[in-house]
């Protein structure tokens, strides 16, 4: 793999950037892989990378029906944070945030990771009580967090309407300074490049149509490019996880919903942090390109269509304009939807199954992007050892039967 560096950039500029090496190759599927990963998004590619890097398994294929990072990885609002309420969830997301902090160096790829901080606004007394509880829980778990007053927020974000006359007055906020944003596509590309360099086969345009079993173990996957034999199969298919599970007659406690987001036309720098509000239901940041990146709420109905209803977009915009009256004349450039697989307790499933050699990483719902490196890391451990990583253990599929749910609706349900 060609190392990227400032010097390399200078060198290639002399040849008009026409001689850059291909970032990954486009291999022909082999007959057998030790691990086949279904789904070439951020999580799938991260899983492949950590399997190859930390567990020495390099005979891996990542099977993707479209193109790499073309699903929810390309459709989220790029926010990274770890201020979840419950111990299990906050440990997992903090593990991920710690990996984020060194990831660009690790992958030798510019992820444009920017720890610009995340504000979660409170608009009611109950909001503020919840925020204080969550910040205290975070601090006990060693995660940075602060409760800010309205004056402090106003100083930080002058364009936010903090007046007393606002329809939903801002009473305070939680602040996580280490949180921020990352370039979503670069995360998929960075993991893909690093995984390919370690010998992982990235099979794009390869759709899994069935999973072959022998007795109670998986032996491979049927694809539109023929049968691929596999020692282990790991499913990281987000919104389509239940479709894959159905191929082996398994049911998952997931529902797939459309989740929408949108960007405005590019503006000069005006918002240097991430502002989220659960109460009025909007969240916004400004990308390095200058567009305002705005996340909408989830559509209530089931949907695999990668699009949602317009009224959801309208509600989101109303909330954003309520918070930032200055944006009322900004024009939107694009809006889109992704399919998110939501769990009843708003926490993911990272689990072995009753079928030997079949693993699932799914149910991330609205907040999977921030967990990309962490989820890949613990899922790779789970696959390699056929035993859940200590951080992944509470997220077993068995929790729906045992009742040990991790109710993160407060920290995850709306804000992503």
């Amino acid at each position, binding site marked *: 793999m060609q190392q990227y560096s400032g010097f390399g950039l200078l060198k290639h500029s002399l040849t008009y950037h026409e001689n850059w090496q291909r970032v990954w190759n486009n291999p022909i599927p082999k007959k057998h892989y030790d691990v086949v990963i279904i789904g070439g998004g951020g999580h799938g590619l991260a899983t492949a990378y950590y399997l190859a890097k930390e567990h020495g398994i390099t005979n891996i294929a990542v099977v993707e029906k479209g193109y790499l990072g073309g699903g929810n990885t390309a459709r989220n609002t790029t926010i990274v944070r770890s201020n979840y309420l419950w111990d299990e969830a906050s440990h997992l997301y903090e593990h991920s945030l710690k990996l984020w902090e060194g990831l660009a160096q690790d992958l030798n790829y510019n992820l444009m990771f920017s720890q610009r901080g995340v504000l979660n606004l409170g608009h009611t007394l109950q909001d503020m009580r919840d925020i204080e509880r969550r910040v205290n829980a975070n601090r006990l778990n060693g995660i940075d967090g602060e409760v800010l007053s309205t004056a402090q927020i106003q100083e930080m974000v002058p364009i936010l309407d903090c007046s007393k006359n606002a329809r939903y007055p801002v009473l305070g906020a939680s602040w996580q300074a280490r949180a921020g944003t990352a370039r979503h596509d670069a995360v998929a590309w960075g993991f893909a490049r690093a995984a390919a360099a370690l010998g992982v086969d990235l099979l794009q345009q390869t759709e899994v149509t069935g999973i072959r079993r022998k007795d109670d173990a998986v032996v491979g996957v049927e694809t539109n490019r023929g049968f691929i034999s596999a020692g282990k199969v790991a499913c990281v298919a987000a919104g389509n996880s239940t479709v894959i599970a159905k191929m082996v007659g398994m*049911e998952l*406690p997931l529902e*797939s919903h459309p989740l929408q987001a949108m960007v405005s036309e590019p503006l000069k720098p005006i918002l240097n942090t991430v502002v989220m509000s659960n109460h009025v239901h909007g969240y916004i940041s400004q990308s390095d390109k200058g567009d305002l990146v705005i996340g909408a709420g989830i559509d209530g*109905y*089931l*949907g695999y*269509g990668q699009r949602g209803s317009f009224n959801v977009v309208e509600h989101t915009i109303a909330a954003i304009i309520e918070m930032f009256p200055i944006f009322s004349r900004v024009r939107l450039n694009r809006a889109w939807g992704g399919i998110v697989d939501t769990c*009843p307790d708003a926490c993911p499933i990272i689990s072995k199954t009753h079928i030997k050699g079949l693993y699932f990483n799914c149910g991330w719902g609205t907040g999977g992007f921030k967990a990309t490196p962490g989820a890949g890391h613990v899922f790779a451990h789970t696959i390699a050892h056929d035993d859940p990583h200590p951080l992944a253990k509470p997220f077993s599929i068995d929790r729906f*039967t045992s*009742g040990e749910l991790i109710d993160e609706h407060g920290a995850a349900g709306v804000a992503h």
Partner: protein
Amino acid sequence: MLLIKCPYCEEQREEEEFSPAGQAHIVRPLNPEELSDEQWARYLFFRKNPRGLHHELWLHAHGCRKYFNMTRNTVTYQIMETYKMGQQPSVTASQEVK
């Protein structure tokens, strides 16, 4: 935005008047205390989530405030039919028209 015909009001109205309420025709077990944990979990948490035809429950929240059923394609979002509570769907996956 979906245009939905409420089978009680018999009018085609915009989606904003309605709220989705999940999978239809879920039968509450009559003998919950006799169920195993697996069966109870299945009743509480496991839903069909099909890619294709889905029978689901909707509430005409800003209208007649009645629940009704709908058969809808979850990929194209096409609404095949709406029908009253207690009735059975006339469009089912086996007779799906592509």
